[in-house]
C-alpha cells in the first residue's frame, strides 16, 4: 500500500531559501519524519533535520507541517489525503540554521534565568513526604518534552521579535506554575513570573495548548492559575487587607522571594 507523496520541504539557511519539491515513496503507517528520512537517504543526503527518539518523547523533530507546528514523528500520513501536498518548513519563530533546523537557544537562555527548585530540609528520617494530590498538578507540567512548539506558535514572540527580551513564553510559565505549586518549595515566584518572565504579555489565546503534543493544558492549568496567583499578590486589595490584619493564606507561609 505505497504511493508517491507530494512532499515539499523548505531548504535554505539564514541568507535565504525556498520550498522545494521532493516527491517520495511512502507506505502505510508512516509519519512525516519517515518521508523526510527517505528523502535524506535517497535524494538529499545533506538535508538538515533534528530528531532523536521518533516516538514523541524527546521533542526534537519540531517543525511546521502545512503551516501547523507539529512533531514530525507524531504526524501520521494517514491524516492527509494521498493526493494532498504536504509542505514542511522549519519553525518560524526561531532563527533558521539550515533547512528544518532552527536555533532554539532562546529557550535555553530563558531556562537559565529561572530560579530552580529550592526545597527545605528533609524529614528527620532522611525522606520527604508529599501527598499524591499535591504533586499531581506539577506532574502534569513536568510531562513537557521541551519541543518548544508552544514557544514557536506563541504570537507574542512569533509576531514580535522585540518581545523576546522580556517574555519567557508558555514553556517557562509551565515551569513557574510547577514550582509555585510545589508542596515543598520555599520560594514565592509570583513577582518574578509577572516581572522577569512577562506573564502579563500573554493574552491567553491558547495556541500553546492547541499545539502541545503532550496534551498539557498549558493555558487553563498553568498560565491562568499563575495569572490568578499574581492577582492575589499584586492586584487584589482584599488579599492585601487580609494580609495586613492577619487573615493570610497560611498555605503560603514561609516562602520567600528568590
Amino acid at each position, binding site marked *: 500500500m505505497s504511493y508517491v507523496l507530494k512532499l515539499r520541504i523548505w531548504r535554505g539557511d539564514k541568507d*535565504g*531559501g525556498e520550498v522545494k519539491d521532493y516527491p517520495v515513496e511512502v507506505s502505510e503507517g508512516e509519519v512525516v519524519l519517515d518521508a523526510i528520512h527517505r528523502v535524506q537517504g535517497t535524494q538529499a543526503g545533506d538535508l538538515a533535520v533534528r530528531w532523536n527518539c521518533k516516538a514523541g518523547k524527546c521533542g526534537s523533530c519540531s517543525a511546521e507541517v502545512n*503551516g*501547523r507546528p507539529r512533531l514530525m514523528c507524531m504526524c501520521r500520513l494517514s491524516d492527509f489525503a494521498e493526493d494532498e501536498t504536504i509542505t514542511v518548513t522549519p519553525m518560524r519563530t526561531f532563527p533558521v540554521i539550515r533547512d528544518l533546523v532552527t536555533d532554539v537557544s532562546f529557550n535555553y537562555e530563558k531556562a537559565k534565568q529561572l530560579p530552580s527548585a529550592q526545597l527545605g530540609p528533609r524529614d528527620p528520617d532522611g525522606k520527604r513526604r508529599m501527598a499524591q494530590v*499535591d504533586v499531581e498538578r506539577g506532574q502534569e507540567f513536568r510531562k513537557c518534552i521541551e519541543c518548544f512548539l508552544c514557544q514557536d506558535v506563541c504570537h507574542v514572540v512569533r509576531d514580535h521579535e522585540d518581545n523576546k527580551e522580556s517574555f519567557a513564553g508558555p514553556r517557562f510559565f509551565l515551569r513557574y506554575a510547577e514550582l509555585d505549586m510545589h508542596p515543598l518549595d520555599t520560594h514565592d515566584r509570583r513577582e518574578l513570573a509577572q516581572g522577569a518572565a512577562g506573564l*502579563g*504579555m500573554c*493574552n491567553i489565546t491558547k495556541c500553546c495548548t*492547541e499545539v502541545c503534543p503532550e496534551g498539557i493544558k498549558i493555558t487553563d492549568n498553568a498560565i491562568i*492559575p499563575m495569572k490568578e496567583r499574581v492577582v492575589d499578590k499584586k492586584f487584589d486589595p482584599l488579599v492585601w487587607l487580609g494580609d495586613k490584619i492577619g487573615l493570610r493564606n497560611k498555605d503560603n507561609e514561609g516562602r520567600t522571594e528568590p
Partner: protein
Amino acid sequence: MPTTDRGVTSPGRARIEERTLRRDRWWLQPLATFVVFSGFVVFATIRAFMGRDYYAEPYLSPFYSPCLGDCVEGASDFGQPFGWWPLSAALLILVFPLGFRMTCYYYRKAYYRAFWLSPPACAVAEPHGSYSGESRLPLLLQNAHRYFWYAAVLVGLVLTYDVLLAFRPMPGRYAVGDGETSGVHMGLGTLLMLANVVLIWLYTLSCHSCRHVVGGRLRHFSKHPVRYRLWTWVSRLNTSHGRWAWYSLFSVAVVDFYIFLLATGTIQDLRFF
C-alpha cells in the same frame, strides 16, 4: 495583508513570505465568533436602551434583573433605589454581567482572536506592529476579573430568584380562566428562564477565577480536603467554560427576546400547567 519585518519575516528566520502556510479554513472560527458576538452586541444594545417590554408577568428579562430604576409595576423585586435614573434600568445592572464576560478568560481569547486578530488563528501572523499584551492599562484591568465574578454570583442569585417567581400564578392578562391567585404555574417562559439560569450558573461556576478562589490558590490540597473536592468539581466544569459561555449567551438573548414578544403581545405564552 502585510506583516511587519519584526514578525515571521524578521531577519534570521527562514525566508517564507506567506503569513501562514495553513491550508485549512482557519478563518472560519474567528469569523463566526465575530459575526455572533457582533450580532449579540447589537441586539443587547438595542434591548438595553429600549427601556420597555422587559416584563411580562411573571417573567422578567435577565437584561433588566434586578430592576432597580424606574421600572414597570411588578418588575422590581428589590425596590427602586435608582428610581431617579433617567435612562433604561438595564444600564444600571448590565455593567456587571458585561464586565464579567469582557474580562472572562474565555471571552478574552475569543475576542482577541476575532476582533483584534491578535492572533487571528494559531500560526497565522497578526497585522499589528507592536504588542504589549495585558501588561499595561487599560488591559491590565483584565486582572479585575475576580471582582466581576463576585458580582456575577450575586446576579446569578437574583436570576435564580426570578426563575422561582416565574413559577408564580398569573393573576393578570395571561391568566387562563379568571384571575388565578394561587397554585403553581409553568409556561414556556418558565422553562426558558430555568434553562437560562442553569447555563448562567454553569458559566459562572466554571470560571477560572472561581476555580482559583475555591481551591486553586492552595499549595497543599491534602490539607484542605473540602476545598480540594470543590476545586476538582469546578475544574471539571472549567474544561467546558467556553461552551457554557456560548450557550449562556444564546440563552440570555432567547429569554429576553421571548419576553419581548410576550410583552409586546406578539405571541402568547405556551402554558404547560
